[in-house]
């Protein structure tokens, strides 16, 4: 008895899922690290502090990463269906 082989589409979907998951995890990690930096009050992880300019900068640069991570997660879920 032979087992059914994966179609090319199935292989592609599986690879996309793995690659996409890695990227989303990386994005999420980057965001978490940055927020920890902000919350750590800048020391020993310089130069971020809790002053408004520093927090504003941190928010401004993490926002696109978080948005892209969310969008990528949604798109990957759509592909899975």
């Amino acid at each position: 008895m032979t087992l059914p082989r994966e179609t090319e589409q199935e292989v592609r979907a599986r690879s996309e899922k793995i690659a996409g998951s890695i990227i989303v995890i990386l994005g999420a990690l980057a965001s978490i690290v940055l927020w920890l930096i902000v919350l750590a009050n800048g020391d020993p992880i310089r130069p971020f502090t809790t002053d408004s300019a520093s927090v504003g900068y941190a928010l401004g640069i993490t926002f696109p990463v978080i948005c892209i991570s969310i969008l990528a997660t949604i798109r990957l879920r759509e592909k899975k269906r």
Partner: protein
Amino acid sequence: MIIVAAVIAELGAFLIAGLVFFGLKKRYGWTVASFFLLGSIVWTTPLETLGISTGSYSYSSFAGSLFPGYQGYFVWIGIVPLWIEMGWFIVSASSFIVFHDVLLPRSKTVAGAVLAGFFAVDLDLMIDPIASSNKLWVWIGPSLSIMGIPLYNYVGWFLMIFLYDIIIWNTVIYFRKIRVLSAVESKLFSIRENVTSVSMGKRATGFLFRMLVFEIFAIFLIKAASMVL
């Protein structure tokens, strides 16, 4: 101790680069993943070497701090730490997959490359201030800057990721004409059609040629930006 951050950064970059390589291999196969990784080293080493040798920045803050003869990091390509090139690989490959594969699979190459470039700049807006204030590298020359990081650095990030994205898409994923180079390439490599299957030698030669041409272009623009900003 700050030296621990340097060791963690170096080892962590190798670990994450391994994960990203695994993702690329699963998605595109060994050939594309290997081109992408080795190409990242070839693509970034000249620019990094130029930046260090012209005194824009230095990677030697930790030299001699672990043991006698320690250069500041463990693995080097010439005067550039290898983990820096792994960092470029991580950012370029992540941006490439996010925009060309996941978010904009049916859009034009240039649109994906532009967004990948901006995404990379955004990532570097976090990476660079943290890394340089912890002395993983140190910016030396005076310049217009944000949080101690020269603005021309971000011009460089955009250009390098944008151009590498274009090269990978048109040379490694497919083998397509790049309009600005088509006059020369039609004679050198006889690229006439968009094809996916070409010999490894032709693909590698095209890859190196395009990296050389675009590298010169990028260095020229980054140098101009550093003089203006």
